[in-house]
């Protein structure tokens, strides 16, 4: 297969072949992390701008390290240091960044569609690092990569995604990618956060986690974003944990080879108990390691094509 895209905006528009190609490329880059010198010259001379209009530590750090391992030059711009706070429009800010000859723009933005908006207007590669409640494609890819690595395949696996699906870009990217590769996806959570409308995407919706866990090959727990949670969606954190948290007791329902995943940062004792997060079924730290390999693959493919 021949990679043709300069941008990675979401998993919805990728084909199964394209997703598999990124995963295979990530296999090669994962190996680089085990070398004595963990750096290759693949993007030497390219400039990458990490443009994070919404706070993020782990995604930004992961992209930064991925770019460094590919020998690109990196500039980080965060909300507080950007002129957006002075009233400059997104487009003007981005055009200024391009005037500095940035080759790759990694964008985190609170508005869905912001990366698409820029990708259409800029010659640079645009990589979506999370846009509103729309998509977070590299998180979806690293989750899928981790499942494939641990289970050897994606096809026909039962994957449960639990939590705040309505506001989750991680859930959407996972849904689009997993379904394309043949997984059976079940979304679990209160009806306010997991409305039936999601069934149009080809998934099953459930409001009873105890019915879903015994069949699951993978449980992906999303963070309850209490800093954003509006009161009307569920009564309280305690009740959420009682009804949907992966407690030590509830984890006994899982098959012994079921993977427990979480995109982080985890709220211990809210969506997951410490014993489960640190238990043998947890692959949470493997997700972090794999995120680096997947982001190297995405930067190499989108940033490496001739434009």
């Amino acid at each position, binding site marked *: 297969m*021949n*990679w043709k895209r300069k941008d990675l905006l979401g998993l919805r528009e990728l084909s199964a072949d394209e997703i598999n190609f990124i995963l295979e*490329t990530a*296999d*090669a*880059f*994962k*190996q*680089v992390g085990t*070398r*004595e*010198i*963990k*750096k*290759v*010259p*693949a*993007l*030497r001379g*390219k400039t990458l701008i990490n443009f994070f209009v919404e706070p993020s530590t782990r995604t930004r750090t992961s992209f930064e390290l991925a770019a460094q391992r*590919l020998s690109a030059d990196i500039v980080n711009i965060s909300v507080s240091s950007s002129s957006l706070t002075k009233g400059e429009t997104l487009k003007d800010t981005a055009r200024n960044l391009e005037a500095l000859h940035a080759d790759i723009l990694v964008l985190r933005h609170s508005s869905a569609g912001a990366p698409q908006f820029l990708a259409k207007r800029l010659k640079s590669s645009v990589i979506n690092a999370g846009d509103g409640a729309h998509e977070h494609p590299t998180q979806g890819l690293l989750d899928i990569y981790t499942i494939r690595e641990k289970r050897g395949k994606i096809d026909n696996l039962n994957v449960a995604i639990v939590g705040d699906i309505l506001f989750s870009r991680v859930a959407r990217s996972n849904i689009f990618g997993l379904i394309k590769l043949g997984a059976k996806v079940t979304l679990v959570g209160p009806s306010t956060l997991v409305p039936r409308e999601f069934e149009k995407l080809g998934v099953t919706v459930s409001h009873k986690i105890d019915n879903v866990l015994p069949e699951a090959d993978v449980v992906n727990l999303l963070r309850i974003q209490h800093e954003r949670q509006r009161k009307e969606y569920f009564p309280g954190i305690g009740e959420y944990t009682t009804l949907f948290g992966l407690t030590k007791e509830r984890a006994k329902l899982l098959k012994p080879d079921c993977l427990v995943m979480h995109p982080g940062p985890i709220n211990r004792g809210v969506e997951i108990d410490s014993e489960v997060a640190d238990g043998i079924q947890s692959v949470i730290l493997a997700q972090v390691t794999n995120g680096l390999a997947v982001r190297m693959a995405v930067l*190499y*493919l989108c*940033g*490496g*094509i*001739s*434009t």
Partner: protein
Amino acid sequence: MQMNGKKHSSSPTGNQILDAEAIRRALRRIAHEIIEQNADLKSVVLAGIPLRGVEIARRLAEFIREVGKIDIETGTIDVAMHRDDVGTRAELPMVHASKLPLPLEQRTVIIIDDVLFTGRTARAALDAISSFGRPARIQLAALIDRGHRELPIRADYVGKNLPTATREQIQVRLQNIDEEPDGVWLVKE
């Protein structure tokens, strides 16, 4: 130029330079030369460049096992991420995971490729190997040396020297990679 380490889907049209038997003889001779020139065969690692270099390394190890009665270690060295022309080629080269027996200190690494042309792939392989460690020696073996070097690089072991014009192509087919009979063709543009 080899085609970015991809499988070929059809038979080439052009002059056949080597058939399966000639390839077998050429590799067998390289195996003999490797045995002659490396007193300590146990320290040797055959590092194939994907895809066909990996297959050639496997075949060389087999010949060395037959002739020298010794199991020699093989590995894979990816060069795609070490090339210096990313962003200028129409097609991005496919990257592969490298796999070498570590540590490389005190060892002789022999880079194995199907066709030696400009030398840029060999340069990238040298760079890639150095990110794994510092071998005692690095050597280079190629099934075909077609000339036109752009860098000060030469092969230690060559199956066949083949004078070519830059516009011509060398196409190599190996059964285990291409699912077609072994052969080398000179294809005019």
